């Protein structure tokens, strides 16, 4: 499937962010990422896709942990592989749980922040600031081996932000967190990626509503391919050529279905007897919404409810991955 692009590359300088140019990565016979071209600019960008879609591969590529087999990646005009200048700007929170179990949370953060060249005092100060930001001050003196999954996520996040990076890569940062922790981390990510801060944040998740709460800008990957990227609303506009799903509730649903099926904008109509609604797939929403009131008025059909089934990322993603458009 061809990617639906509503990306900002055409209007932002590529040197102002991370640019993946026709990037492919394969592991033996397995394709990890296929011909991905995308731009990650300032603010929060969500990286969406089901498990195994290629999200972690993409993050490993942009963090310089692996090299693309094809294409190239530049960040602020620099190559990312083995580039210490680039790593100075990068904060990375991996999706795996393993850490240095024998260290305390504080020692872990302090160790990694000091690898940025900070002295003992500055390193400790920054480490404590970050630990405080993620709400781990009380537990920072405990060994990581004793941490719960949620605590591990927080301390991983602390090491990623401690040195005040300009680019932040967060791979499934909400995994394993409790509901309160989720809200706190989501708020923190939004705060970090605030446009005024000038920081680029790429945050991956396979749970779409989590991303929706952080940003409208997304990269969607599936089976190694980039399906869509850019502003969610712009993506929706570009998706007009795909069927949109609606539910229409009416006392005269069968009569209404007869008129709807004759509209050129309607690709299918299904009567859902269980829920007493019509499930309608349309191709050109603007045309459809302008014609529908006229038909209803002319035929004197009243409707009780008209709802879109694909207002959220879940549906957009389903469209793009061929999983249908309804909830």
């Amino acid at each position, binding site marked *: 499937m061809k990617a639906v692009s509503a990306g900002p590359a055409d209007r932002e300088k590529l040197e102002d962010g991370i640019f993946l140019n026709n990037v492919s990565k394969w592991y033996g016979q397995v394709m990890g990422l296929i011909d991905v071209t995308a731009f990650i600019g300032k603010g929060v960008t969500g990286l969406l896709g089901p498990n195994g879609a290629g999200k972690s591969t993409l993050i490993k590529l942009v963090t310089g942990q*692996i090299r693309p087999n094809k294409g190239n990646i530049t960040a602020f005009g620099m190559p990312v592989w083995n580039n210490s200048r680039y790593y100075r700007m990068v904060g990375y929170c991996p999706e795996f749980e393993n850490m240095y179990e024998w260290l305390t949370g504080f020692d872990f953060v302090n*160790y990694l922040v000091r690898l940025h*060249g900070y002295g003992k005092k500055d390193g400790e100060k920054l480490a404590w600031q970050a630990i405080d930001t993620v709400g781990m001050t009380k537990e920072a003196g405990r060994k990581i081996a004793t941490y719960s999954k949620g605590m591990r996520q927080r301390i991983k996040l602390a090491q990623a932000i401690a040195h005040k990076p300009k680019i932040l890569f967060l791979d499934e940062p909400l995994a394993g967190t409790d509901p309160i922790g989720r809200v706190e981390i989501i708020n923190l990510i939004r705060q970090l990626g605030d446009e005024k801060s000038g920081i680029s944040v790429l945050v991956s998740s396979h749970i779409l509503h989590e991303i929706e709460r952080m940003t409208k800008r997304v990269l969607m990957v599936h089976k190694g391919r980039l399906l869509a990227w850019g502003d969610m609303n712009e993506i929706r506009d570009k998706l007009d050529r795909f069927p949109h799903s609606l539910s229409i509730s009416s006392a005269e649903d069968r009569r209404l279905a007869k008129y709807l099926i004759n509209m050129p904008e309607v690709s299918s109509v299904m009567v859902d007897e269980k829920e007493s609604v019509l499930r309608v797939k349309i191709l050109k929403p603007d045309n459809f919404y302008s014609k529908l009131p006229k038909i209803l008025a002319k035929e004197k059909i009243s409707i009780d409810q008209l709802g879109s089934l694909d207002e959220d990322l879940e549906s957009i993603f389903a469209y793009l991955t061929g999983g249908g458009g309804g909830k």
Partner: protein
Amino acid sequence: MSGENSGNSMSTLLVIVSTTFRQLLFRKQIFLLIFFMLLPVVVALVWIGNVKDTEPMVFFSEIYNNLYLHILLLLVSLILSVNIFNAEFKDRTMAYLFTRPVPRWNIYVGKFIGVLLVQFVVVLPSVLITFWIIFAKGGPAGYWDDLGGFLIVSMMAILVYSSFFVMLGIKLKYPLLIGLFVAFIWEIVISARSTTIAKLTAMNHLQSIAHGMTDEGYFAHLLNYGDTGTAFIVLFCITGAMAGISIYFLYGKELE
């Protein structure tokens, strides 16, 4: 903030060295290795309690050659060095280091120095105590000068074997079997042959250094030995070559 992005290689090197040192020193396996290192001490204690007719230097050099050189130094070096990178690749924690502004050669040097220091802490006291037990009771005062020689041979053994095992750990996914083969087949079996091929082993060069530093005992009567200076040069060259290859592998390394 002062120090920000200073890129101070020495500072980051020291941070890696000290963290690696702590990392290894607090592993459970360290207790097992210390237990192994007590073995020559126990043998020495048994010896002073029972055997009186063997010369202390003859006895110590036998212990040193058979236990330290042929088993313990190889074992300690293999167990500690092979995992210093390999374990971090496997549990993926290397991603934390590879995404920091630290050149990979710096990571190598820091971790290598760290693993050397831990081995010195584990091995050298054992050599020292064993020597003291054997020579404290009736040994000629002059023999104490030889202690330095044995400590130097121990450090050289740790240096050269570690450089090789660390390289295996970087390159191979499962380096232990190859490490065991090199340690206990190549180094022990080949070095025991009284032919030129023995000179291809690090063991032969270590024995040559010991030969040049002692006047009595096992090493003094060694038949297949080389020049001490040459042995030092060869061992340093092997270490340097292994370090170079390791850094080369590290620069091309992609994380899983």
